[in-house]
């Protein structure tokens, strides 16, 4: 069995890319995708550790995360559609009525 360190580093990189994406991008859809990337980074870590330990928990957790991610994506996309319908943009810098 392979040491999970490499996978953990990979997961960290994925997570970081996703996080930076969330912070840096202005398109809400891409932010959503960045979040998905972060979640996938998490999944990599879970699966790698689970398989290294021979423990099913990691795999199960990854499945759970995927399920949740799917549900989130569904809700998220519908919110985006609703926004687009009202405002015809999903640029988050223009979606700042609520502030201060």
């Amino acid at each position, binding site marked *: 069995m392979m040491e999970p360190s490499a996978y953990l580093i990979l997961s960290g990189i994925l997570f970081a890319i996703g*996080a930076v994406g969330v912070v840096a991008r202005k398109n809400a859809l891409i932010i959503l995708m960045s979040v998905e990337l972060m979640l996938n980074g998490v999944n990599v870590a879970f699966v790698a550790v689970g398989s290294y330990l021979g423990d099913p928990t990691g795999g199960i957790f990854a499945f759970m995360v995927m399920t949740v991610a799917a549900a989130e994506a569904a809700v998220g996309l519908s919110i985006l559609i609703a926004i687009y319908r009202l405002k015809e943009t999903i640029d*988050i810098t223009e979606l*700042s*009525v609520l502030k*201060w």
Partner: protein
Amino acid sequence: MVGPLSNIHEYLWLILAFPLAGVVLNGIIALVAERPLLLPADDHGHDDHGHGGHGDEHGAHHETPGYRKLVAFIAPAMIFAAFVVALLSVIQLAQMPAESRTVVQTLFTWIQSGGLSVSVALQLDPLSSVMILVVTGVGFLIHVYSVGYMSHEPAFARFFFYLNLFMFSMLTLVLGSSYLLMFVGWEGVGLCSYLLIGFWYEKDSASTAGKKAFVVNRVGDFGFLLAMFLVFWNFGTLNYTDVMARIPALQHSGILTAGLATAITLLMFVGATGKSAQIPLYIWLPDAMEGPTPVSALIHAATMVTAGVYMVARSNALFMLAPFTMGTVAVIGAATAIFAASMGICQKDIKRVLAYSTVSQLGYMFLACGVGAFTAGVFHLMTHAFFKALLFLGSGSVIHAMSGEQDMMKMGSLRKHTPITFYTMFIGTLAIAGIPGLAGFFSKDEILWKAYSSSHGSPVLWAVAAVAAGTTAFYMFRLIFLTFFGASRIDKEVEKHVHESPFSMTIPLMVLAVLSICGGWIGVPAALGGLNHFEKWLEPIFEGGHKAAAVATEALSHGATAAVHGAAAHHDPMEFILMGASVAVALFGIAIAYYLYMVRPEKPAKIAEANPNLYRLVYNKYFVDELYEWLIIRRIVNGSVWLWQMFDVQFIDAMVNGVAKTVRSAGDETRKIQTGVVGNYAFSILLGAVFIVGYLIWR
């Protein structure tokens, strides 16, 4: 009136109770009967509903209303009753052996807390007996006089309410058995003085003068209060008898040092300067002449202002232990005497002349006390009460005759119109000038002699006092000449109404005139072959002081027995020389007055013109009031405004509001972080996460 009472001293409280009853009765009358009549016509009587109807002026008729008659009876009657009780008490006191002539009647415990226990108790002893007789006696006469003098006054009942209240307070002052009670009366008479000076409160000058009197007195009271604290924490009591009794023991144990005694007595003397109008706190007394003239006579001449002398005499044992204080008292007394006398020279207002004269005479009394001649001080207090009350009442009679005019420059030749007033006042003037045989002569001469001969005295003090005596004679005769002699300068309109006063006013004048003549005879000094009953009477009071002083001296100069009584024992030929000198000085003063105001009436104006600056200085009372105003009052008021603005408004509140503002604007800035852009929010989260994880790992 009370029948053969076995012990009149059990009824001492009546001396206070009678005036108090007068206070209550007159107060009720003033409130119930008189108040509605005094309201402005358009809305009196309907105060509950706020809007009275028009017309209906039923308060306007001129008959004497019944309540005024009642007041006119009650007020003097109560004082007379008190006088009778006082007289009976003193007679009984006199029948007791000299060494046990101290009667204390305890009424109830007043304040008790921790170590302090003060009772409302009355103490009758030779000193207070002199005082109560003077107070009730002269007081009664002035009450009678007032009934006539104030007969045109609308607020008649209120006046007598105040006047009776004054009598009550004054009697408390002199009868109280402890310093605290004296203080009660002390402040009480201050209150009445305030009320009576400002009696005509619609006059701004009157209410200002009243306030000034109270406040200046308070400055003195400040000293009195602190003196009491020192007495209490060192003697453990405020009762006279206990304080006196504990002096030897405390001297022995080294607690009562000259330093402590000096501190106590100096503070007390601060109080005395306030009440008795000595330098530097005399300024209120001339202004106090804004009050009705009987008030000036009663309060600002005969009784209240002498309270300071009474206090010093009362505390003689302590004063004797404090040579420095004694010196101070004597110097201040002498200085006040000459200073005030000089201010009396140029005054045009008849009452103001008398006011400065009072200040000056009070200076004599303090001079006496300061040289250890307490008896002489008290003696002069008494005689002064007679002739100064007489003079004031006389001046009141003059003013009455002149329809309120007080400027002597607008008088003259009144002798013809008001003979009784003239003669009585003339007697008073002779008395104050120190013409032999009259009351003032004996007392003043006693003081002059002691100022020279006493171990505390000095020729300088004598000289100053003698010059002051001459000045006194001068300005008093100036007053007489300007008022009663010469050509009439009276306003034509006024002249038509000039008349002699009614009997209710002239009879007290006559009685006082008699007293001004004979009052001094009970204290004829031994040197003149007198028995000096007065000195013997007061001896028990002042014995303690001499003893204490003796002990103190002994402590200083081991075993050197100082013969304190010695000075008075043998007849010094010097006494006669000085006596003659002082009479000569007085006559000289009279002669100058005669020359300037009778022979060459145009001369004074010329002298004034020749020395304009000097004249202005003296006429304006050396600008002392202005100096105080500029030096102290302005400073304090402006300083307070500055304090308030700088500290409260610009510092504390600015800080408080500033903190509030800062917090709030900080809040507004904090809110600005909330840009509304999700990316920024996410960045904040990311940053937070990085910080936390970073801290946790690389801690």
